């Protein structure tokens, strides 16, 4: 394996796309990109922009139209392709990772068995390793697919939408696993995704496919601040710079809020969500009162003061 930070995969004037009826459909301008060892890169872009095609071309299973891909390490893939063989167990599926190293009769050595069990342990599927694939949840199946790629023991891992159709919990688990793999095992990982929030919080670097068919490279924060994300995703009502959904203070009422910690943040959230503007000085004010085991909200309005034990009651009173 190469030194940390060395180039693991590089493209030179790579043109990806496909041929249909002798016509070339080019998806991007010529690409000169690099993945460095131990990096977690999220490849983002709207649906249908050509993320899958680029990943397959990088992996060498789809020919490029021109240009080259240079890999300094072997590549394993996790795709969105539906697989058959519902009778196979998780362990059978992970065993596929060893196929490039096995003979035609698929004789497994003790080392192969060790690698397979390690891959299963990495994704925490030991307890269901003998379950058949049709008994797994979507999240478990995706984890098994990742374990299969891990068993291939490659330096580079390319994943196409590994978190699609999963709930938030599974999405976070998968991104954390990839983060950990890049950091601890030095794998170079490229994840195609359109999950903005997860990518921003886990990626070392972003490849962003822009509408003018280029791929912009950068660390997440730079791309947020210089507005590239806004251009690509055409964000509607989501303020990337604060990481929140923009609210319109439609009630035209300002509220002064005093308090600290999580209680302050969530009270502010509740107020803004309900159409109030939270400002430093206003005639209506709310104090968050906290002692060791309870929280209460003190509302001062029109020189009258009242106290509430839940935000629900507070909001109801405010609306009057």
């Amino acid at each position, binding site marked *: 394996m190469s030194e940390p930070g060395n180039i693991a995969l590089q493209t030179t004037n790579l043109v990806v796309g496909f041929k249909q009826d002798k016509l070339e459909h080019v998806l991007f301008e010529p690409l000169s990109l690099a993945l460095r060892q131990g990096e977690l890169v999220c490849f983002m872009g709207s649906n249908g922009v050509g993320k899958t095609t680029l990943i*397959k071309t990088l*992996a060498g*299973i789809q020919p490029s139209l021109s240009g080259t891909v240079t890999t300094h390490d072997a*590549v*394993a*893939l996790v*795709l969105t*392709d*539906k*697989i*058959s*063989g*519902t*009778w*196979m167990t998780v362990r*059978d599926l992970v065993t*596929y990772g060893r*196929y*490039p190293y*096995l003979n*035609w*009769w*698929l004789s497994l050595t003790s080392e192969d068995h060790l690698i397979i069990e390690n891959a299963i342990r990495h994704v925490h599927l030991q307890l269901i390793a003998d379950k*058949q694939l*049709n008994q797994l949840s979507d999240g478990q199946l995706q984890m098994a697919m990742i374990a299969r790629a891990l068993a*291939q023991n490659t330096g580079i891992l390319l994943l196409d939408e590994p978190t699609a159709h999963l709930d938030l919990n599974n999405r976070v688990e998968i991104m954390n696993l990839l983060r950990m793999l890049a950091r601890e095992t030095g794998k170079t990982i490229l994840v195609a995704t359109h999950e903005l929030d997860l990518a921003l919080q886990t990626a070392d670097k972003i490849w962003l496919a822009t509408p003018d068919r280029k791929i912009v490279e950068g660390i997440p924060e730079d791309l947020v601040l210089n507005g590239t994300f806004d251009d690509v995703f055409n964000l509607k009502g989501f303020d990337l710079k604060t990481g929140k959904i923009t609210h319109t203070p439609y009630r035209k009422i300002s509220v002064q809020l005093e308090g600290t910690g999580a209680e302050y943040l969530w009270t502010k959230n509740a107020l803004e969500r309900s159409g109030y503007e939270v400002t430093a000085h206003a005639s209506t004010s709310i104090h968050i009162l906290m002692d060791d085991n309870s929280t209460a909200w003190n509302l001062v309005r029109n020189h009258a003061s009242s106290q509430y034990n839940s935000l629900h009651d507070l909001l109801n009173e405010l609306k009057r």
Partner: protein
Amino acid sequence: MQKYPASFILPLLAAGMGVLFVVNISIGSVPIPVRDVLKALFADTGTYSEIVWQFRLPKAITCVLAGGALATGGLLMQTLFRNPMAGPDVLGLTSGSSLLVAMLLMAGRYGSSIANLIQSPWSIAIAASLGGAIVFMLIISVARYVRDNTALLIIGLMISAATSSVVSVLQFTSQADDLQTFMIWMLGSVGSTGWSELSVLAIVILAGLAISISLVKSLNGMLLGESYARSLAINVKRSRTLVVIATGLMVGAVTAFCGPIAFVGLAVPHLVRLLLPVSNHKILIPGVALGGAILLLMCDIVAQLPGSTQVLPLNAITSMIGAPVVIWMVIKAKRISV
């Protein structure tokens, strides 16, 4: 689901096949006691030696070979198309074989000087294999454009119908005695193979089986789809060609000598997976081959109508036993899968 390991089920299937093999030989227009069957087989003595060696043994061996070949061909096709309803008869391979065999027989009639050459067992086997392989390649090229499983089956049925209609035209123009031969052949029979045909059948089928076994890794890889298979360093194009050759050989040879036997290729892989719920072709190929042999031995026993001198057409029996089984499986399992 997996109640018993393959190391238990496979020998069980082999033993079952052995028992049915002996029972199959003992049943016929003249019932032969099992003791005399064994005596004739191993010592070549006894009153029944002639019947056993000249008629019953070739027929039983044909059952084993044909059943194993059709079932393995069905498994290969289901894996290649990743479609549980694929099979040599469903997708028109047997019709393709029938067409070339019919054409060969007609050519033999009109070019009488080369008739003997043309109608040797070898040329019939080669023509039938070629016919099956051509239809298979046709279906594969169509499958590139049609990703939908149901559409593929409909196209298979249409190809099957088209080739069958050409066969009917050939029948219509042929003479009465030819027609009768052809009709009997269409009904399916394992009883018309002598030792010379049998040796051709065995060589061709064993070659097809050997190719299938050499493809274990690629067949497993195909279950994950073409992209994954390629990323696992499997040569998909080459493997696909070899699957076509192996299936063409096995299905073609059976169709040439036994007629277009329906249902075995489609149903046996699913029946075997009730006992062996696995996806690994290392276990599936021997399991399915044994299962096919068992099913055809059983069907032939039923076709003999024990206690009667009548023999029913084999095709009627395979469909009569098979169709309800598949319907039952679809209803019970809600869905069947590769």
